[in-house]
């Protein structure tokens, strides 16, 4: 199964179209944080941009820490949330080694990339791609 990869972030212009697209289409929100992909500069705009996004770990370290098994491993890496089972403890966000889970303070649920690829066509600079876990088309070698 393909996963979302931020393979070409050196091309990023910081428009936040991806974050806004995820918030709009996946989370039915207007936000640049309630999004599975979050963009930030690394110490001011002059240093360029980074994407914080689920790396689709397989197995994912965030799933076993969930006390109610609300987070279940996704086939091909990453996780899925069974929202009904979530007790809003936030342990998953702590467990993620790359801070890719944003614990939404309004709804108290984890927000993470579900590797649906809806943000990819919205990126004007082809920074993002859907690829097999072992593949990557990067211009940043």
């Amino acid at each position, binding site marked *: 199964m393909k996963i979302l990869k931020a393979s070409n972030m050196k091309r990023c212009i910081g*428009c936040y179209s991806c974050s806004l697209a995820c918030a*709009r289409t996946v989370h039915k*929100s207007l936000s640049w944080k309630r999004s599975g992909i979050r963009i930030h500069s690394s110490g001011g705009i*002059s240093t360029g941009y980074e994407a914080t996004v689920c790396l689709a770990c397989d197995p994912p370290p965030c799933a076993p820490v969930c006390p109610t098994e609300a987070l279940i491993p996704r086939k091909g890496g990453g996780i899925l949330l069974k929202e009904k089972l979530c007790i809003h403890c936030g342990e998953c966000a702590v467990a993620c080694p790359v801070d890719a889970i944003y614990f939404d303070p309004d709804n108290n649920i984890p927000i993470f990339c579900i590797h649906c690829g809806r943000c990819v066509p919205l990126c*004007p600079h082809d920074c993002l791609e859907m690829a097999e876990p072992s593949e990557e088309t990067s211009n940043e070698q």
Partner: protein
Amino acid sequence: MNNKFRVLVVDLSSKKSKVEFYDTRKKWLGGSGLAAGLFEKYANFDNDPFHPDQPIIFAIGPLTGMFPLMSKTIMSFMSPYNGQYAESHGGGRSALALRFAGYDALVITGRAEKLTCLGFGAREINIQDVHYLKGMDIFKTGKILRNLKPKNPGHRSILRIGQAGENLISYACVNVDTFRHFGRMGGGAAMGAKNLKGIIISGDSTYDLNKDTIKEYNKVYKDIYKIITESDAVRKYHDLGTPENLIPLNELKALPWRNLQSTHDPDIGSISGEKFAEELLLRQVACAGCPVGCIHIGLLRERFGEDHEYLYRQVSYDYEPIFGVGSMLGVTSSSGVLTLLEDVEKLGLDAISAGVALAWATEALEKKVITAEQTMADLKFGDVQSYRTALKNLAEQSNEFYRFLGRGALVAAETYGGEDFACVLGQEMAGYATGENYFVSQALGFRHSHLDTGAYSFDQEEQAKDIEKSIKYMQDQEYYRILMCSMAGCLFGRKAYPKENILRALNSLGYDYSQQDLDDSVKDIQAHRWAIKFRTGFKPEEVKIPKRFLEVETWKGKTDSDYLFKLKKEYQKILRDIAEKHKFADEEEKSEPER
């Protein structure tokens, strides 16, 4: 359903804030309209621009963050440049940060006791003492402010002023997120007068989209995004960016060179958009919420040691700044232009006004109207080093001469002589020597900006000398631009946002407007803005058009003074008529906030 405007009002004197609500969506729309409404409520029209009570306002619009290119913030204030009501528009992350902080506008009143940084987000307001930043440049200030509250890297906007703003120079700018600005009319000095060194806006909240309208909203979003990214409508702004206009304007004989002593120069190739792109362009970046990426960053490499020791700087460039410190100062090397732009940026000056003011000073020195003792540098067209010294002295306000020059080229000219060649039309000219219509438009324009009516385009049309058509053009353009700036969108998005699309976008979010409503509101906002400008001292009859503009020779030949002054006379009458349509609050019922 039109919800209420939510406005944060911060008083720096008492260090107290309040949240106000205004049920005026129909009347004020947002952006420019909202800023004018709030200005009328908070300003004292009779006090001077530096009076502590005068407000500084930042307003966004109903479409901010909701649609691509809806990425501008409207700053409004009493201009330190001319004492009149003014607007200046900026981008960066400011608009989205304000949206996600949860406010439609920010109003700042009062004066802080010590140099201060205001930092706020959806759940916090911090008035922070930053006396240690006194005199610090824009870049260092930005770095230190990043460590202040609220901390929300990547999702906040940092506005700040440099030495120019602190020293109340009439054309000090406000820097936004390192590479953008509220550039013109002295917003930086308005902040300086409040002892306000910086503003950090943290966008840390989220809105749930309306379930009833989300389907239509996504559809409209997709349509507009498609126009922007798949058509050629805005591609040029990303490619070479605005500097693509340097060669065409030079060929038209419409690019001001050496204080507008000429409008064409064979050396254009050394400072053209192509030259910058091929040799110095490092990358493009974008304002938050805009996929275009028009911000061009140049790489300036500087050798600092005898061995091969280099440092590098990243300097943003655009058409206007290249005109301001390039062609206008006769600087014909692209790295020379970037060197001056870096200085202008650091000091927090408006690049256009600073360049044009120094261009006047150079010619005044040449003509012995002023002395080298006064300029403290041997200013010569093309001499980058002399301009670096002058910029420093200007920002530091080193002597009496620079104190006058810091109030504008025309103020200096009225003091020392040389008014005929001060290239000022309401404020220092923008880079368009296209002819009579443009000169009148900038001289009388609401912002004294090339963006008020875009009359430089009309100058290039066949009927460019038809007063009736010219006025219709300027009025139509002003109408549309008020609408766009009330949303508050970037004017580069004009092709994606004809007024039908703006209405579609508003309706798709559930806002209740008809085309007639929008037309009526824009007319009201237009009258309102002009009424405040007149009420705060605008006398169009007294706005000078210096002789230099009458001597200009473009592709059409010499300026037609007769047409120019007839047009000016006619246009000023029309503006007065528009302003009279607005009734001020003491005559009508005032828009009081609801708590």
